[in-house]
């Protein structure tokens, strides 16, 4: 499904600020895999997802999604294959557009946009139905501007918008990190339901080790731009936070980023 071959990414290459963000990443992800991604701050998690999404191009290496070499595709072109939800709830929706207008924008992800009406009458019932599943009462507010919604409501809407058209790959970058714990759990629950239902191939970055263990069928840990750990199946199912920490020290031999790893 996704194949990353020798991905190398520098920022500010050749300057004093040079950052070696991704160090020769090789990663194969199968269709339907739900991969959780952990690692300390600055490990390169977001950079990895951004490379897959085409926000910037790797310095070398190859990205293949669904048998297509997308390495040179710009971000907007990859949207045909990829959906994303960002950490900041403000980034996933248009505040001055209504809920239905936002959903209509998302329902055309990766498709040609023409002179047909932006919001079509026949879409409205479908939107309302999908919003009803969220159980947040948004189905009665199709004409409200999204700027009026709370962060949690916006993030729930973003999850819905990201998956209305089934993406080949779903990328979640700490998408619940900015929410209060209760809302975060609701959104996580919703995420799980949507991914299960659509059998979506997913990469989910989290800074919460419990979540990383509890969700998904595969876990990878990044450190300084390399994949330090890659566990799946039984191995992952039986994992505990303690194991994860032990594993981390064994490979690393130093007490790194303990704080950020212990969070949660």
């Amino acid at each position, binding site marked *: 499904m996704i194949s990353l071959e020798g991905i190398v990414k520098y920022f500010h290459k050749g300057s004093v600020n040079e950052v070696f963000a991704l160090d020769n990443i090789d990663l194969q992800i199968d269709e339907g895999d739900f991969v959780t991604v952990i690692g300390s701050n600055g490990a390169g998690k977001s950079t990895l997802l951004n490379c897959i999404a085409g926000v910037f191009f790797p310095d070398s290496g190859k990205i293949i999604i669904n048998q297509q070499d997308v390495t040179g595709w710009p971000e907007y*072109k990859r949207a045909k294959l*990829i959906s994303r939800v960002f950490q900041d709830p403000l980034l996933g929706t248009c*505040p001055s*557009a209504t809920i239905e207008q936002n959903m209509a*924008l998302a329902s055309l992800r990766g*498709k040609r946009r023409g*002179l*047909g009406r932006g919001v079509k009458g026949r879409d409205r019932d479908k939107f309302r139905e999908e919003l009803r599943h969220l159980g947040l009462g948004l189905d009665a507010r199709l004409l409200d501007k999204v700027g009026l919604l709370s962060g949690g409501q916006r993030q729930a809407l973003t999850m819905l918008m990201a998956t209305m058209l089934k993406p080949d790959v779903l990328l979640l970058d700490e998408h619940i990190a900015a929410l209060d714990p209760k809302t975060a759990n609701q959104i996580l629950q919703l995420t799980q339901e949507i991914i299960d239902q659509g059998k979506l191939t997913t990469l989910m970055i989290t800074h919460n080790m419990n979540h990383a263990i509890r969700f998904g069928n595969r876990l990878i840990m990044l450190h300084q731009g390399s994949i330090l750990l890659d566990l799946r199946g039984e191995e992952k199912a039986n994992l505990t936070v303690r194991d994860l920490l032990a594993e981390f020290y064994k490979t690393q031999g130093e007490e790194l980023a303990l704080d950020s790893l212990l969070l949660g």
Partner: protein
Amino acid sequence: MTWYAALGAVEQGLVYGIMVIGVYLTFRILDFPDLTVDGSLPLGASISAVAITHGINPYLSLVIALAGGFLAGMVTAVLNTKFKILHLLASILTMIALYSINIRIMSGPNVALLGQKTVFDAVIRLGVPSHLAGLVIFALFALVVLTFIIWFLGSEIGQAILAVGDNPQMIRSLGVNTHTIIILGVGLSNGLVALSGALVAQNQGAADVGMGIGTIVAGLASVIIGETLFGCTTIARAFIAALLGSVVYRLAIALALGLEFGGFRFNPSDLNLITAVLVISALIAPNLKKRLIAR
């Protein structure tokens, strides 16, 4: 203000209102402050005037003017998106270049249209008194442009244009090439500005290379007046407000020019100063209000 002066002001408000709709599109919708308009207004005027003096149908000359303006806007947008030149600077460069281009088009600083056919002939032939012909034609064009822009922004592409101004990162991740949208939007905006210029030229019987000076400031003043007086809660309302704002602006200018304090009167050449002061006060008013309330 005489009845005649008021009529003239409404006429001006409607024809320049087409320009204001274009300015609203870049300034407010796309969040792209665009000074190209000071060049694309006279560009439309020169194209239309030269076309008419070469025997081209006056209506067809409007289409050519619109296309010319569209192209000018595209140049600015390409400089900004593809070559990463700051939007303000990119638009100033196009505007300056257009000054020379307009003189080339007219083979001089102006072209007179005395005795030539214009778009007003048709309505005069229909029996509209000639002093009302401008009003009728301008109202018609302004309404058509207003309806078109509201319809267009409600389309799939139009909604993407709104999203580019609102949250470019989001709309890119939904598969929209934001560069293409900005090029289209700034192009369309300047197309409308050129159309406005072409109609002005046909009305005043001449195109002049200097007629674009202050276009952006007049446009902004109209936008701000419109928003303040008529609101901008929906797209339709915002564009109607922009058009009405243009009419109110021209009426206010006519009023100011008619004022007399002792021996002092405003000259038409004071117009840009008055407008600039108006825009500055509108821009700093919210700030001042906040400070006063904070006290």
